[in-house]
């Protein structure tokens, strides 16, 4: 995998530095607003002491070295766009299979897989079928989904709900607990706002408020949704208009991690006790915010494509502190 600093279109810029917060008091980490990005074949997430770290799966050897193990590991994949066949990646099946191979090459099978939406490209039944079929080869059998806007085309998400929404509320939101971590899957693609911004809506926000109300503030929270819940680049619709309300319900928790897709590139931001990550696509890259005339698929040389696609792997270790530290050693 090649990484290029301040790269040309098609190359990922590697951040100059990673934000660390080694305070173990969890008090003042506001002000960490700098974004960073790294190239990746996806991400592997480790939670240690209630803190989620995200690693590129293209660097398995490195995160073995960093003892990226814990009580809980899981993988995030996103934006498989099954059915897409244009120049930016005429073979999304192969790259999806490569993502599954990466998952299966992990030192230990992850507890589960999160798919943060755009499973399909055009909401066609056969596109969903293909993804479901390919996922059967993954070492992790449980897969949790949230829809992307491409999964709810033409039918207001009816098909999506029939396939993936059995035990969910509303348009497909839900929560579950695993090893003391509270996971919340949100849907922000149903009523896209002007400019394409995501939206959660009143009903879902009320549900979220109730869902987290009973939790102790030391409970690590992982929220996942398709469109970023932070303002990445509103000019391209890369944000969610009412995410501030949702995040306000999560401010009292010591460790909150937000995992998103949609923008087909990895980014991270730390704001207070909330750490935001976006995942790569398994299908095709998109330009960096504002770079290019539109956020359409980025065409890159074939030998560079796979370096710009990927998965995210997460590992949780129960610890003394439940603080929202970010300690990524990737760049």
């Amino acid at each position, binding site marked *: 995998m090649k990484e290029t600093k301040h790269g040309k279109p098609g190359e990922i810029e590697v951040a100059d530095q990673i934000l660390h917060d080694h305070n173990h008091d969890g008090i003042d980490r506001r002000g960490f607003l700098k974004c960073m990005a790294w190239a990746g074949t996806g991400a592997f997430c480790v939670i240690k002491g209630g803190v989620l770290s995200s690693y590129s799966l293209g660097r398995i050897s490195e995160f073995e070295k960093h003892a990226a193990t814990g009580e809980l590991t899981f993988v995030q994949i996103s934006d498989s766009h099954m059915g897409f066949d*244009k*120049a*930016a990646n005429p073979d999304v099946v192969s790259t999806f299979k490569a993502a599954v191979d990466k998952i299966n090459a992990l030192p230990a099978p992850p507890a589960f897989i999160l798919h943060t939406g755009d499973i399909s*490209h*055009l*909401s066609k039944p056969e596109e969903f079928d293909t993804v479901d079929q390919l996922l059967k080869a993954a070492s992790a059998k449980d897969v949790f989904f949230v829809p992307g*806007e*491409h999964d709810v*085309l*033409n039918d207001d998400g009816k098909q999506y709900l029939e396939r993936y929404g059995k035990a969910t509320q509303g348009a497909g939101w839900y929560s579950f607990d695993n090893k003391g971590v509270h996971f919340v899957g949100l849907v922000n693609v149903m009523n*896209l706002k*002007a*400019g*394409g911004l995501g939206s959660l809506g009143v009903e879902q926000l009320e549900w979220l408020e109730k869902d987290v109300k009973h939790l102790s503030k030391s409970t690590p929270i992982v929220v996942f949704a398709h469109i970023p819940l932070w303002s990445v680049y509103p*000019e*391209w*619709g*890369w944000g969610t208009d009412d995410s501030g309300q949702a995040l306000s319900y999560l401010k009292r928790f010591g460790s909150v991690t937000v995992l998103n897709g*949609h923008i087909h590139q990895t980014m991270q931001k730390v704001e207070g006790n909330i750490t935001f990550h976006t995942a790569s696509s398994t299908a095709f890259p998109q330009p960096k915010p504002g770079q290019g*005339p*539109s*956020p*359409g*698929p980025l065409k890159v040389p074939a030998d560079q494509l796979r370096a710009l696609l990927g998965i995210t792997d997460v590992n949780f270790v129960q610890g003394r502190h439940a603080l929202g530290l970010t300690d990524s050693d990737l760049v």
Partner: protein
Amino acid sequence: MKNKLLVFGATVLAIALGVGIRAYAAPAGAGTPSEVTVKIDNFSFSPASITVPVGTTVRWTNADDIPHTVVSDDKSFKSKALDTDEQFTYTFTKPGT
């Protein structure tokens, strides 16, 4: 008297940009209603603004690699998701902007 009709295209992927369409009342016997084409390219409409007589059919063609949806501002009409090179037509039967 002209009513307001704004036609917006909401792209499926991420963005919405508008094409302003103004339909004016054509005088009786003004001729056969015609067709006007609008191209969706790079997440925007080309031309971005048109003025047509009532009865005109507008044909949108998606030239992007990503599906888009054409939606009127007042939601009075909406296309299905248009994949690359797919088209949607709508005939403006009332004056408006």
